[in-house]
């Protein structure tokens, strides 16, 4: 680690899914990143992760890793004391990408999304940081009617989860801290738009797919039940997220709030995404429901019901008719940002990648096709017998 004579940013959460994308984006852009690591995370591990992501995206992974400096992350209440060390490293900006996405663990959400943010703000003040960048979520407005604007939100009539509430509260902390800020609000992040590569955990759409893989892909079946409302599903590809985040940091004025999501017109509906998924499995009977109240109380096997249960919170969020203001993103696009919007076809790319990586899904697909063939043959024989008699 060398003492810096150039500016750098402190990037919190560099080993997380979105944090590592941002780290890679800044390094590829030639910027200096100081990444505090905790626990078993190492600089080598982070570089390995970045290289794998870059290779998967067809980007040359041999970038200048000397620009990446790692330091040890102390307990939350001691973070402000890092100021002297970080000043020596030339840190003059904080990019906060760490967060808990646990939907209902209020204690953990407070520790990570509120207390950690407060501590980092205090550090920012001691560093006299030129800006505090906060990674939030597009859904932090809560369930509100009409256009969700790129402003700080008031308390909504209802929140989808404790998580969205905690992100809104953290945004308020950032807004009121007195430091210049940028708040970035992505919608549901899915894999790379060109190859479908995804290195995150089973969040969002991947939770839907992974839960299906885990609980449905086991026995062949002829009937499936899905929650599939006909509203737009707000998503963004990880390559678009990375490009948008870096462009926002470089180009937007202080105190901006940015919604990072695809154009409303190009987005598929939940029904279209679910139909595309259902079409993979060669089942003869598929039921789609617009609203949870339509799901029949009986007649659905326990595994399908459990899967519906396990995706119910995300289904509730997806069923809301969200509409996000994207004026700031439009400005970035006008200024030259290349941002590939999500379409049904690009979701298909991600879906195909997911299925190709899943042994369990492949086996299920094979078994179900075999069963379907034998069911069809049996049915044809019956028809023939009936016609003869």
């Amino acid at each position: 680690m060398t003492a810096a004579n150039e500016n750098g940013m402190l990037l919190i959460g560099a080993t997380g899914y979105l944090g590592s994308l941002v780290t890679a984006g800044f390094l590829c852009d030639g910027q200096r990143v100081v990444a505090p690591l905790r626990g078993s995370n190492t600089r080598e591990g982070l570089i390995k992760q970045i290289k794998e992501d870059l290779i998967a995206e067809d980007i040359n992974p041999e970038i200048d890793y000397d620009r990446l400096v790692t330091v040890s992350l102390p307990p939350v209440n001691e973070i402000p004391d890092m100021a002297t060390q970080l000043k020596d490293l030339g840190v003059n900006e904080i990019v906060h990408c760490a967060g808990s996405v646990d939907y209902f663990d209020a204690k953990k959400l407070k520790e990570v999304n509120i207390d950690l943010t407060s501590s980092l703000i205090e550090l920012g003040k001691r560093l006299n940081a030129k800006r505090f960048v906060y990674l939030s979520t597009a859904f932090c407005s809560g369930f509100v009617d009409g256009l969700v604007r790129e402003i700080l939100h008031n308390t909504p009539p209802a929140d989808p989860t404790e998580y969205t509430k905690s992100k809104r509260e953290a945004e308020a902390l950032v807004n009121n801290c007195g430091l210049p800020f940028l708040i970035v609000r992505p919608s549901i992040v899915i894999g790379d738009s060109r190859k479908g590569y995804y290195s995150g955990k089973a969040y969002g759409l991947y939770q839907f797919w992974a839960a299906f893989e885990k609980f449905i892909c086991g026995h062949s079946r002829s009937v499936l039940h899905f929650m599939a409302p006909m509203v737009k599903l707000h998503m963004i590809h990880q390559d678009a997220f990375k490009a948008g985040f870096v462009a926002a940091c470089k180009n937007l004025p202080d105190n901006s709030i940015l919604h990072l999501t695809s154009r409303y017109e190009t987005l598929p509906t939940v029904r279209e995404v679910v139909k595309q998924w259902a079409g993979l499995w060669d089942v003869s009977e598929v039921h789609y429901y617009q609203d949870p109240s339509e799901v029949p109380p009986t007649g659905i096997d326990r595994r399908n019901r459990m899967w519906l249960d396990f995706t119910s919170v995300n289904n509730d969020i997806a069923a809301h008719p969200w509409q996000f203001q994207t004026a700031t993103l439009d400005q970035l696009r006008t200024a030259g940002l290349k941002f590939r919007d999500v379409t049904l076809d690009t979701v298909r790319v991600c879906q195909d990648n997911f299925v190709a990586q899943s042994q369990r899904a492949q086996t299920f697909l094979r078994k179900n096709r075999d069963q379907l063939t034998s069911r069809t043959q049996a049915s044809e024989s019956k028809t023939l017998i009936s016609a003869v008699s």
Partner: protein
Amino acid sequence: MIASPIAQLTDSEILLWTILHNFEALALKQYEKNVLVLATPEKKELVELLASKVPTNKAMENTSLEEPVNNLLTSATNSDEIHTLIVQGILLEILGQTIYRTFKDSDAFTSATHALCLTGLTAQESIREETRKLILEKIGSGDKVYEVFVSISRPVIMNLDALGESLDQHFSEKFGISFSDLMGEFVAELISTCMDLGMDRRKVVGYLTSTLMGI
């Protein structure tokens, strides 16, 4: 019901009951140490019966099941009364109940297994109501018990989930029941029990989703 004629356990059944014996013996030990009232005569009878049928861990040794089973046993061991009520009293009792109910009527098993399942169900019935009362009395209901449940049960559920692949390797084809079948029943019963303790269904489902999906 008396299963007749009494058959011998098959090798696969011996492996299965060796695992279940470990969990039932641990449950009794934990009850005797931390919540004596749950160490019922029926529970003791079950553990003694299992000890007579599968007296050693030999069937499990050097199999792919040994490590995940031991991890689960370790995470389920604690000297705290509340931990025992949550882990043994709720989680593992419901798991046992799911297994015994599913296997007792399955043609894939011998009558010896059917009989053991019935003894297992009787043992569980003997503690079910007392466990519920104790939890409400010692921890409370609603969000209070939810928070305790979440903080204690997470590693145990994760270790249980990690057992799935090995269980399927050994039992799925032989018995025609996959781990995800059992988990479907287990989760449905667990959610119902949690709601009975006043927990918010949406929160419980959200928690189980994140735990079982590794997020």
